[in-house]
């Protein structure tokens, strides 16, 4: 059993927000208002919550509520970046000459938590023209297609923005989590001592 303390409160909050999310998706996809069927829906939400509890999958890593506030400004920027990168790659594919210059390089991620690094690596992969091949600690191995995609990454704009997102700039500070380092075991010890 979990001790009711800081972790317990966190756990309840994450469980609650996951339940709200699941119910919303269920209702969106079914659109029913019959009592019996809504009962079945509640039953399935509880079943999924139980399975997530058994998998130990309800925490800030699988369900990062604390990033929600920063996402409002980050994702529109990322979408615009994706549009620009698409244009760049589309031109390179149509020309298919000197503009296609595949390169491999290392990029440092300045985020402290693993969620932040994963967000950064995912954003890089989502942007056409750059793909994250491997992550080793804070070192990302990147494959880039054109000169423009390489330069876009080297400005470090995305890195800066993901770090700001991770630090919860503009978001409620109560949702920020203790920093994760390379060993997840360390943080569990740290968080236990806080309770």
């Amino acid at each position, binding site marked *: 059993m979990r001790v009711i303390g800081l972790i317990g409160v966190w756990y309840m909050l994450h469980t609650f927000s996951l339940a709200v999310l699941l119910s919303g998706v269920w209702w969106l996809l079914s659109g029913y208002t019959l009592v019996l069927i809504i009962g079945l829906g509640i039953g399935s939400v509880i079943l999924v919550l139980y399975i997530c509890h058994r998998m130990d999958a309800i925490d800030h890593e699988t369900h990062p509520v604390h990033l929600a506030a920063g996402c409002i400004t980050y994702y529109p920027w990322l979408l615009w970046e994706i549009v620009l990168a698409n244009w760049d790659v589309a031109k390179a*594919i149509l020309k298919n000459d000197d503009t*296609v210059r*595949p*390169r491999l*390089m290392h990029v440092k991620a300045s985020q402290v938590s693993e969620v932040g690094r994963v967000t950064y690596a995912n954003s890089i992969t989502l942007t*056409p*023209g750059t793909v994250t*091949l*491997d992550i080793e600690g804070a070192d990302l191995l990147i494959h880039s*297609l054109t000169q423009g995609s390489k330069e876009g990454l080297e400005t470090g704009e995305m890195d800066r923005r993901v770090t700001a997102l991770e630090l919860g700039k503009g978001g409620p500070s109560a949702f920020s989590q203790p920093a994760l380092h390379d060993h997840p075991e360390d943080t569990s010890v740290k968080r236990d001592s806080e309770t």
Partner: protein
Amino acid sequence: MELVLDVVSWGFILAGSGFCLIGGLGLIRLRDMYARKHGASLIDTLGIGLILTGLMVQAGFTLVTAKLFLILVFVFFTSPTTTHALARAALNSGLVPDVDKDSPIKQGAVPSKK
């Protein structure tokens, strides 16, 4: 108003179709598997994104739009995962990326795991 919405959704769908075609062309033309990944990611981002946005404009504020949005969100979060998994699997199995001469990491010096 009807006409404006129709024109806007036309624009979105045609642009999305164009990006799909260019992505497919990239799958054929680019030189190796790592480069072709960028062509595939054209389809996964703006190809599907623009076409489904055009359909959303057609549907207006209904349940259909919500479902289209959910599809977009799923693709948005799953496609980088598959791309990264595939790239990493290829790198770990010893497929060497064909890179340019002025690449920061040279052709032979690819840090392969095996």
